[in-house]
């Protein structure tokens, strides 16, 4: 018994192809630099805080330095009173975290962002606000 007439076989095939094979590609082009995202701040106290970030994509140049920078103003880089924690060179994508010992002013709003330095580029991730409590 011929179960499928020919037009149906063709339609079914194309339908299946459209459903399965039409994977959509992102319109966002690959970057030459590393892409960063701040994942959060944990265990915040007046004396320390743990910063967590993620390298989402790798750039073309190797990472010479990475870490976190923080302060009470935004933007805060190159301004007095900001802190920086260097974590050295690294390779690849993935999460990195560090706990910093720092005399935070209680109940003040601080901002932190991760960074990655290569020979010709410095990339800052998004800023996240946190408030040290006793």
């Amino acid at each position, binding site marked *: 018994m011929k179960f499928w*007439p020919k*037009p*149906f076989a*063709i*339609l*079914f095939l*194309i*339908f299946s*192809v*459209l*459903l399965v094979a*039409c994977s*959509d*590609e*992102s*319109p*966002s*082009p690959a*970057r030459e*630099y590393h*892409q*960063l*995202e701040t994942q959060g701040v944990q265990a915040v106290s007046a004396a320390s805080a743990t910063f967590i970030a993620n390298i989402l994509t790798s750039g073309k140049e190797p990472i010479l330095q990475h870490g976190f920078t923080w302060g009470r103003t935004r*933007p805060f880089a190159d301004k007095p009173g900001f802190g920086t924690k260097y974590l050295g060179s690294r390779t690849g994508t993935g999460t990195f975290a560090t706990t910093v010992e720092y005399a935070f002013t209680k109940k003040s709003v601080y901002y932190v*962002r991760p960074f990655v330095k290569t020979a*010709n*580029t*410095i*990339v*800052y*991730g*998004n*800023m996240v606000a946190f408030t040290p409590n006793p």
Partner: protein
Amino acid sequence: MKQTLLLALTTLCSFIFAPSLYAQSYRPGFIVKAEGDTIQGLIKYREGKGIYRACVFKPAEKAPSQKYTPSDIVAYGIHNDAMFESHTFTNNKNKETKAFLEVLVHGKLSLYEYQNMLFVSKDRDTLQRLAVKVNDPGIGGIVGEIRTTTASTKHLILLNSLTMDCPVPDELLAEVVKKINTPNAVAIVEAYNKCAASASNITYKQHKPWLTFDKGLFIGSHTTDFAFAEGPNSVHNTNFPVRSNVVIGGHLNLVSPRRSEKLSLQVDALFSKEQYQGYLEVQRPLTIHRTDFDIDITRFSAVIMGRYTTVRWKQVKPYLAFGASNNFILNSKAKRRFESETTINNIKQVDTFLSEATINMGYYTGATAAVGTTYLLHDKYKLLFQLRYERSVLFANREFSNDDFTVHLNSNNSFYITAAYIFR
């Protein structure tokens, strides 16, 4: 890529269905000539006003067809289906007309239909129009005046006079006090005939229900390209490539086989969780701004279409459908990743900002057209394949405000390709 595929599919469907548009469907039937001879053969199955004007008949499968008007023959019919008789009568414009009338019930009292007009005839006597006349005062009157329209009782008097020798149940007459529809008229005439002369009663198309519906479940793919109409940082220039998402839903097709085998009302309700990605790059003298948008939408759609089945093959029934869609955004979320690249002393600095944008849209509507076909698996089960195009007009919930990341979405073109499992 996908647009090419869809175009190919549309073209393919056109090729598949094009012959069906010209295909003629003949069914076993007969014509009755003026001298009383009945000639058996094949009658072309048609719907619409044409059935009252002429019939196309051929005595055998390979014989040439011939058109007969009401002046040429006295009747024609399709076996186990419809029956038409040639009559001269006065239509609703008080004009004497000769046409084929569809015989709904044959018996001591007969019921005929001509273009939604009903006629009754007792013992093959003169045709009498069965209609409710409404006394409407018409345009005019005083503002605030209560206007009353009343239905005439002439049709009830006519029915009572025709059925006086064998009264029909009051509950049947009660159904036609203000409005007569065909099923109620058929029920009255049938009731009378069964009482007065039961053996003579023939109700045509009796095996066909007045209303039935197919219901089913479908799964498919929704392909669309969104565009922003308004928003901060020139988001209207954002490139949103065509994106495919899975849709699931329910299918309902309301059909009146006794009225029409070709026309039906299709209602599809679909649910989808959709993801769209957009990218915008703006070059400035010292900086380059790169923005990525990730949009998640949960959507419910109700699509209502009039469906026309082009031809009936043994198991396959291709169709065309046109209608409107109503789309409700149940939930939406747009993430924006903004990267600003500045070059100072040959060192590039990239700053990253993340934010959430609000999709300023809760509802949109659109015109839609579909081509599809059903495939009969069993008396009660069938498959349905459908390709549907939708041109939507998207409405903003509120005025665009430049101090937030509210975005308006522009009009969009969507294609749906779905497969459904239908059961009665």
